[in-house]
């Protein structure tokens, strides 16, 4: 009896459900449903990664990546970039005195000028960066030492900054809350860089540096907000707060001439507040707009950079740089991406050839080996 009921059931576990082979009702309830999922009978697509199927993919990748890589590489090479280190470590460098005589309490700023020559003219928009080395903006305690809600203009946070800001939360003497609080804000880069062009005829003219449009739009307009009533004076709105310890002037004097770029929404400040990923970094400082006529933005020739030297880096062996760079559709000068694309494309292409050989050599063998099965 048992045997016959089994024959009817077939062996694949396709229990028809109605079969009664002496099982009690309880046992029947435990039976998994006869669904495709539970019986592992879902229809499926079963691709196999063989040399034959992968071959085209390799060739396609190779043929796509190599042109992209070449394009990237050429673009990157066309980008002009000029970099000056003005830290003032070497005794003969122009800023040596400023770097050495730095004191925190000095009221007058030290100014130094660095001369340089651009061999090639810079076309289109030129971007001016400052670069810092050995500056760990990504240190954990540094990164979290800020109060985003204070920066967003929340009044309560302005007067009572987050604990994360310690020890730059309140002024130790006046006990007033610091605005903006925290180590990031406290260490704001405050060198002033000015660029002058020596005309061939002997005149010097100041290059116009645009200081707006260097921060993320969303940061400038949403994430960073000045506290208080829009109509009030900014000084009034930051009343009863203290300036960060290392700052020379309070936050509402960052750009006294332009209220749209003052206080927390000062773009230099916003750029600084976006902490860099790596200890050597550069941050956008100014933009030199291209001229309406066809003359290059920065014609080749002699320039000098006038630096108001406020930012000490010698204590941590840091370096300061000024970078002038044009930009392309793929960003700044970085040959890495192009080289990587060319390399990977070539490897894929080469592997495609190898696989083609293997495919031809072994395909017959594997097929013949199948037959006994």
């Amino acid at each position, binding site marked *: 009896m048992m*045997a016959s009921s*089994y024959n009817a059931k077939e*062996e*694949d576990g396709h229990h028809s459900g109605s079969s009664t082979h*002496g099982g009690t009702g309880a046992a029947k309830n435990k039976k998994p449903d006869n669904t495709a999922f539970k019986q*592992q009978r*879902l*229809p*499926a*697509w*079963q691709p*196999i*990664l*063989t*040399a034959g199927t*992968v071959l085209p993919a390799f060739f396609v*990748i190779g043929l796509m990546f190599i042109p992209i890589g070449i394009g*990237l590489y050429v673009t990157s090479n066309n980008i002009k970039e000029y970099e000056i280190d003005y830290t003032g470590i070497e005794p003969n460098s122009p800023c040596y005195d400023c770097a050495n005589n730095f004191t925190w309490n000095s009221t007058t700023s030290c100014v130094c000028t660095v001369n340089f020559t651009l061999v090639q003219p810079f076309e289109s928009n030129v971007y001016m960066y400052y*670069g810092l080395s050995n500056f*760990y*903006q*990504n*240190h*954990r305690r540094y*990164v*979290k030492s800020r109060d*985003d*809600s204070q920066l*967003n203009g929340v009044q309560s946070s302005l007067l009572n900054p987050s604990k994360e800001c310690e020890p730059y939360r309140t002024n130790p003497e006046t006990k007033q809350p610091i605005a903006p609080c925290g180590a990031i804000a406290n260490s704001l880069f405050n060198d002033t860089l000015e660029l002058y062009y020596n005309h061939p005829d002997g005149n010097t003219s100041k290059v116009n540096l645009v200081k707006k*449009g*260097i*921060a*993320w*739009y*969303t940061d400038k307009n*949403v994430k960073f907000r000045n506290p208080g009533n829009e109509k009030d004076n900014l000084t009034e709105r930051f009343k009863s707060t203290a300036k960060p310890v290392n700052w020379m002037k309070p936050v509402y004097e960052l750009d006294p001439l332009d209220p749209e770029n003052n206080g927390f929404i000062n773009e230099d400040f916003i*750029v600084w507040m*976006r*902490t*860099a*990923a*790596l*200890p050597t*970094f550069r941050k956008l400082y100014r933009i030199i707009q291209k001229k309406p006529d066809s003359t290059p933005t920065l014609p080749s020739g002699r320039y000098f950079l006038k630096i108001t030297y406020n930012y000490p880096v010698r204590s941590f062996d840091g370096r300061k740089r000024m970078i002038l760079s044009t*930009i392309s*559709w*793929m*960003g*700044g*000068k*970085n040959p890495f*991406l192009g080289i*990587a694309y060319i390399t*990977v494309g070539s*490897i894929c292409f080469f*592997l495609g050839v190898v*696989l083609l050989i293997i495919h031809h050599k*072994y395909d017959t063998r594997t097929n013949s*080996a199948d037959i006994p*099965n």
Partner: protein
Amino acid sequence: MQSLFKCAVAFTSFKVEYVFTDKTGTLTENNMEFIECCVDGNVYIPHAICNGQILSAASSIDMIDSSPGGYRREYEDLFFRALCLCHTVQVKEEETVDGIKRGIHQGRPTSFYISSSPDEVALVEGMKRLGYTYLRLKDNYMEILNKDDEIERFELLHVLNFDSVRRRMSVIVKSISGEYLMFCKGADSSIFPRVVSGKVEQVKTHVEQNAVEGLRTLCVAYRRLSESEYQEACHYLTEAKLALQDREQRLAQAYDVIERDFVLLGATAVEDRLQEKAADTIESLHKAGIKVWVLTGDKMETATATCYASKLFRRSTQILELTKKRTKEQSLHDVLFELSRTVLRQRSISGLSVDCLDFGLIIDGATLSAVLKPSQEVSGHGNYREIFLEICRNCSAVLCCRMAPLQKAQIVKLIKSSKEHPITLAVGDGANDVSMILEAHVGIGIMGKEGRQAARNSDYAIPKFKHLKKMLLVHGHYYYIRIAELVQYFFYKNVCFIFPQFLYQFFCGFSQQPLYDTAYLTLYNISFTSLPILLYSLVEQHVTIDTLKREPSLYRDIAKNSLLRWPVFLYWTCLGVFDAVIFFFGAYFLFDNTTFTSNGQLMTTNTQMMFGNWTFGTLIFTVLVFTVTLKLALDTRHWTWINHFVIWGSLLFYVIFSLLWGGIIWPFLNYQRMYYVFMQMLSSGPAWLSIILLITVSLLPDVIKKVLCRAICPTATERAQISQKLLPGSVAEVTPLSFRRSYKGRSTDSTLLHLGAAETLSLRSCSPLPQKLLAHLAEGGGSDLTSLSPYMLRLSGAGVAYYAPGPETPV
């Protein structure tokens, strides 16, 4: 607790190397049929063969073939009466069994026999067919209906119950005429020494012959007791039964005293049919490289015959015997050493091709206990155990007969604790297998006739032995590859996840600055990468079920835990580290000097982007999530719609989540570090290019490794995948509805034909002849396969063109 642990073992390493199986009820149906009996050398065969429980309509007809014609009529009567009386069968007069009302046959109610032993039922029913019907036990009188339709009554005085030590049982009855009779039935080995007269030699040869055919034999003897002898026996029994101490022992002594001086009446042969596809299953297990051990309480000859029928032993198998018979002649020591020499010599000769000759070992319980006995005498003899293990290791099949239940567990324990620590599986159906089921790593219970003890104590319960094949070869295989992938993929994806974090510490002054945002840290393992692997470990089928069933040797591919060994684990880890290095340094070089900027003109016109540390982390994380998910996609062989949904869904979820997470100033957070980071990143062309590049590079080594391995040294599984692909009408593509049909088509297409396939074939074809063959095969097993070849010829002539007897076809 223990079963929890066992479940864990069963799941994590389903690569079974040893299968221990019970014989009765597991390999066989445990559905006894009375085949023949031998009374004083004359053979009686009842015609109608019917099942043990249901009476055929043609019952109670005199079926004796060769009536002895008055010759020793007395013995015959005694023999049949003995079988009718000497049992513990109960009669169930009521017709409701299994809730089905059974009709009344031939004008009188049909009765059912119920007993703890199916053999007894078979015997009593056999007697019924031979004309002697046991009617009932009423008021201590046993009533039987003899051939002449007369009711005979015997007073039941004593029952000397069966036990596995004595291996016999007796009853003492008093006939109407006042005679005291003691009937005894039991195993030949326990009866013959106690017999004083009768045709011992003739019966003995007959019993041997039956045993060779795989029939279960019992000998029947009787003794006439005088009044005084009876009183004496009564006295012994009562005393023993009333004893307060050592009752069992004293009962055994009493039995021993009483059961002697028998007159041999004859022997019976009961057949226990092999379960369907038992042979196919065992053969498949063999091909899968699993060593099958049969542990049984039956006598050696019976068990050996079953083993041949079930293809545990083949004609080519060289049988090594380690039995009491042999150890009587030589010392155990010598036998063991001789066997191990044979085995080792063979191995050294054949070298690599071990398969060309396989050994089968037969050992009986007595010898086994001698082997396992911790020797107190000489230290040199203490390593019998080791020698025995060495022999066993080289045998593909081992038969242990005459085993006590505890010895079964002992054997399992012995193998389990041997130095390779193989994974063992025990399968059994009765209470006597429980100890072995509990001892083995994986215990499987068969829900048979002997109750549910085995099923209750098992890790898995199956209805038939043949299901073991699918369970091990298909589901075991699947579970194994799924678990292996699951475990290693988890390591891999977390190495990929955490190693960039580690590398970042070198660039952030070892300040433990997290590379990823907290939301990403939290959700990586929970949401972004969890479902694809979960689904993979639920539905992956790297080879179809049919292929796995058809080619048991694929199981060897996962032999010795091959997917969870150090090299494989190291490969995964190295791949993880490689990918992590690619992620991190790829992003590092792109961010070097923070040249990685964009004029942002792709999306917003007035933004010059300077990317900070959170963009750096987000870029790495994006590449990470995509790579890790696509890596699993590369490993997935079985793409159901759920796989598609889950894999692409996970990636989509990640993107949507990131957009949402960065798109809002979340009021409950005291930091807004992710605000617009993801969007700004996506608005930069180089970010897209680098994401594509890094994903490609990370996946490249694994693809190359897969392709090269497959092309240069494909495993059997991989070859099976290809050939499966080449077969027209691949099963995988069909819907469940058409599944059955296509399966059928494939089995006829298949060029490979074992016995199992032949059965399928013959069942499918409509001609009655192959079914007869099937019946023949099922019944006779290997015993009368000489008669098979004409059938085979005729079968192939009958229009089934694909039948080609392979080397494994039994002869």
